[in-house]
């Protein structure tokens, strides 16, 4: 070697170079992780864009246009929608967002705590558990919001939004759906010893919710006990709020209940996620 670099000799030998510091807050720490998540995004965005454009098109053509073509009902029976396409479109949006988020918080989180141990690498630095969770959740939120925007943009030409601002609010509602699924599933995954329990999340959580939480038919069509169950799921709250904005059937009372429910679930999931990840990593 021609030059002798002096790595690791400590700040004392290089008084002019900036010293590393502890983050001032959870948010400060999370921002230090932004370059990491930006690098992850740079590596994966191409596939993501194609899927973000094609998936909504497939959904809306198959479920909305083709299947919807067989469905003729009076508007009152479809929660105010004038066509099945208009009814199902906001449901597809929220349900698709749920599947994306669960995908981002199952195997990738397991990788962080077990396979690649990327969370352990982060935690060996001044970053705290809260910052690690916040950065990951923030990444999922931003990325899924972008994908949702594509989804809304693809749906819009089919005339499923009664107003442009309804479309914007339906999109913004996805932030609540993302939060309500991201933090609890992250928490669940962070404490698992292996990935077999993810099958439970998919089969007993995601798929039944996808099919029965009001995305494809009004939950009023279910028998009484099942209808109550459906109305307790986070996806129903997300679907109903999205649909209110899309169809212009907004009602303040129910809307506030939806928002409160989804925010509460996000907060509870957040608390659980930090707790479970800490229990996993600080032993």
């Amino acid at each position, binding site marked *: 070697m021609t030059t002798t*670099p002096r790595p*690791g000799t*400590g700040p004392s030998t290089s008084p002019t170079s*900036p010293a590393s510091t*502890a983050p001032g807050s959870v948010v400060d720490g999370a921002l230090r992780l932004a370059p990491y998540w930006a690098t992850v995004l740079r590596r994966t965005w191409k596939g993501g864009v194609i899927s973000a454009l094609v998936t909504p098109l497939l959904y809306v053509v198959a479920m909305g246009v083709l299947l919807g073509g067989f469905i003729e009902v009076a508007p009152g029976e479809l929660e105010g929608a004038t066509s099945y396409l208009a009814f199902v479109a906001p449901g597809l949006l929220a349900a698709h967002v749920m599947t994306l988020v669960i995908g981002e918080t199952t195997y990738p989180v397991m990788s962080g705590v077990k396979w690649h141990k990327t969370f352990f*690498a982060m935690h060996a630095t001044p970053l705290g558990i809260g910052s690690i969770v916040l950065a990951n959740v923030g990444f999922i939120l931003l990325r899924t919001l972008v994908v949702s925007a594509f989804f809304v943009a693809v749906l819009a030409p089919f005339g499923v939004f009664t107003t442009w601002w309804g479309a914007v609010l339906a999109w913004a509602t996805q932030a609540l759906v993302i939060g309500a699924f991201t933090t609890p599933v992250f928490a669940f995954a962070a404490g698992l010893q292996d990935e077999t329990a993810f099958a439970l999340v998919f089969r007993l959580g995601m798929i039944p919710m996808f099919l029965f939480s009001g995305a494809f038919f009004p939950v009023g069509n279910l028998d009484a006990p099942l209808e109550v169950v459906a109305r307790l799921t986070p996806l129903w709250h997300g679907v109903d709020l999205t649909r209110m904005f899309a169809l212009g059937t907004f009602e303040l009372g129910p809307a506030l209940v939806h928002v409160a429910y989804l925010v509460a679930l996000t907060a509870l999931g957040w608390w659980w996620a930090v707790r479970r990840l800490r229990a996993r990593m*600080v*032993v």
Partner: protein
Amino acid sequence: MLIHARGLRKTFGDFEAVRGIDVDVPRGQAFGFLGPNGAGKSSTMRMVAAVSPPTGGTLRILGMDPAEQSSAIKARIGVCPQEDTLDLELSVRDNLYVYGRYFGLPRKEVRARVDELLAFVQLGEKADAMVDDLSGGMKRRLTIARSLINRPEILLLDEPTTGLDPQARHVVWDRLFRLKAQGVTLVLTTHYMDEAEQLCDRLVVMDKGHIVAEGSPLELIRAHATREVAELRFGAGGAQAEHEAVAEQVAGLADRVEVLPDRLLLYSDDGERTLAQVHAAGLRPTTTLVRRATLEDVFLRLTGRTLVD
């Protein structure tokens, strides 16, 4: 003292991993924890790295209590964990860059340090390769480079060469030697006695959560072993009973005799002379070897067991 521990303990449920150890590491020292797997070395290292709260005792890192100021401590230490925690899907350069940013260092500064460290660990040509494509030795060197990105005052290395082939180990040792020469405080765990002998100014021998001896490698060998060792092997099968019988015959020829499953160790200050006496006594070992005593002998003496099973 950069590291100061008194009566440090760590328990996991009923299992006592570390049972009250005292450790002091001054600035600039290369300090080692030597012991077999399960001795409590890694548990100790995790406590020192401020990611594992001690169950009992006192621990101060850089004068700070890890229970109160773990982030401030972690900002000033470097950690090279036993398992590489590199992001396999990121390039070599990106792994270092994003990690540098975790320490709150400015972009430009991190970029400069990345180039410097890649040169230091001889991975400059691999800068844009994916980590997944690196050999085990290269990954280890990258992990070492990563642990230096914040110019740490203490570098913690948990089993730095475990799993590497001999050539890769020597490259890692060479880099660690350079750091040592630059005055970096190194704290390492190892179950390789040659690693401990080469790299450590001072070390503690750990066994079952206790420190059983402490000193420089040379001091430990002087205190717990003789200068030389004659190794004798008898027969292909090397039956233990046969060895026990031979051990009685040679007992008077050495300061001490150890019976291992496959060989006898005769401790004396002149191995060749001891060997000559063995032959003079009419014994005919199939193979013999005279060597300098090592930390392996120290460990055997202190615990009755070998380091690497």
